[in-house]
């Protein structure tokens, strides 16, 4: 009986994996910057939100994403609300793709992801530069977008394995 309880506790904990990762990455600014490779940076949070809201939105609530955006803004020091808005736009795009897609295709998802991150980074830069008059480094944003796009397949593969395990364990 106790082992059964323990097992279900682990399953529940595992089902919160996307939320753990989301908050850990916004608090910790998880982007491999400490590797000190010049110009190398990517946005892990964008990949995480896009994947989970597209493939399994039950495990990553919109309210958590909104809160993570607020925390991200505080940590990196930009006006509160901007990241939340951008993250929720990713959610909207992934929900739209989910609604119009009958048979999911990796290449379609990947290209849609590129379009979405280009769009939301443009919105973010526009808000920062034109509304809040915060000078931003445009080439770095573009390079960051490029690396985020390139890293998507790796995390897609990893998250797919985790997603299968979560779905399997919860349906078990």
């Amino acid at each position: 009986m106790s082992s059964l309880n323990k097992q279900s506790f682990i399953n529940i904990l595992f089902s919160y994996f996307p939320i753990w990762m989301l908050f850990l990455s916004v608090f910790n600014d998880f982007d491999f910057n400490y590797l000190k490779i010049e110009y190398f940076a990517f946005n892990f949070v964008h990949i995480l939100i896009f994947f989970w809201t597209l493939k399994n939105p039950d495990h990553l609530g919109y309210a958590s994403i909104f809160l993570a955006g607020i925390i991200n803004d505080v940590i990196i020091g930009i006006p509160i609300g901007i990241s939340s808005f951008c993250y929720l736009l990713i959610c909207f795009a992934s929900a739209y793709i989910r609604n119009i897609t009958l048979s999911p295709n990796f290449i379609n998802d990947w290209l849609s992801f590129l379009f979405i991150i280009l769009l939301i980074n443009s919105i973010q830069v526009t808000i920062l530069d034109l509304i809040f008059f915060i000078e931003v480094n445009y080439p770095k944003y573009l390079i960051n977008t490029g690396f985020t796009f390139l890293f998507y397949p790796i995390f897609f593969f990893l998250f797919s394995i985790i997603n299968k395990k979560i779905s399997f364990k919860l349906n078990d």
Partner: protein
Amino acid sequence: MATSRDDFVIAVRSAFLKKKDKQKFSLLTLLFLSIFVIILSNYNFKVIQYIKIGINEITYRASFLISAPENKIQSINSQIKDHLEIYDNYKNIESELEKLKQKELVNNFLKMENEKLRELINESIKSDELLAKVLIDKDSPFLKSIILNKGTKDKLKIGMAVADEVYLVGKIIEVNYTNSRVLLLSDLNSKIPVVLEPIGMQAVVSGTGGDTGKIQYTKDEYGDQIKSKDLIAYTSGQGGLFKPGLPVGRVTTDNINKIDFFSDFKQLEYVKIISHSIEEVN
């Protein structure tokens, strides 16, 4: 044609309004809420400021705790590197120490002479220093800033200079009750008035978003004067924001518009917050 437009509208409406089983809020509600937050954060109402300070306090502390394991790994890594390079470092330090000893003698004389000259014009500079620990130093590719563990309870104010030992690293741009944010010199939005010595030319050091800065707003003959020697940039004290004479960085003859900062912003653990006042001596 009409059917495909209907499909598009249905898909968009469903994406905005439809909640999955475990979602408590619709996407549209949260999108409006985030726009509302962005607009509110633009206003400086007292209530909003207090809420902002509260959110900052909680988030900075939580981030400090969560980053602890990663920071520990980084510090172990840097310790190992230091141990491996210990002999080379020792040799370099030994030769530098000898040079510094010689310079100190000259500096002491100049310091006393400077004090006497200030007395002659009835002026003295008083400064206070406060030691602070760096809580968060995430190297974001967009904004270069650090969070310190001192705030309004330690009488910190926006605009105070922050130094790594004697080298200027930035200025305070946000103060909460127990912590504050420092904009580093390398940030694109940082502009510091400096004086370039030994030519004595006024300039502004701006951040580039990278590890170096750039020299701006110099006189036309700046290029001719620097040709033969390296320059050191010190804070000029123009505008009364910073104590004059804080070393900022070195300008080499290779690239006269680029400045290499003396301090390594990625290695900051403790910094000094410097406040100063220029008083008249009667």
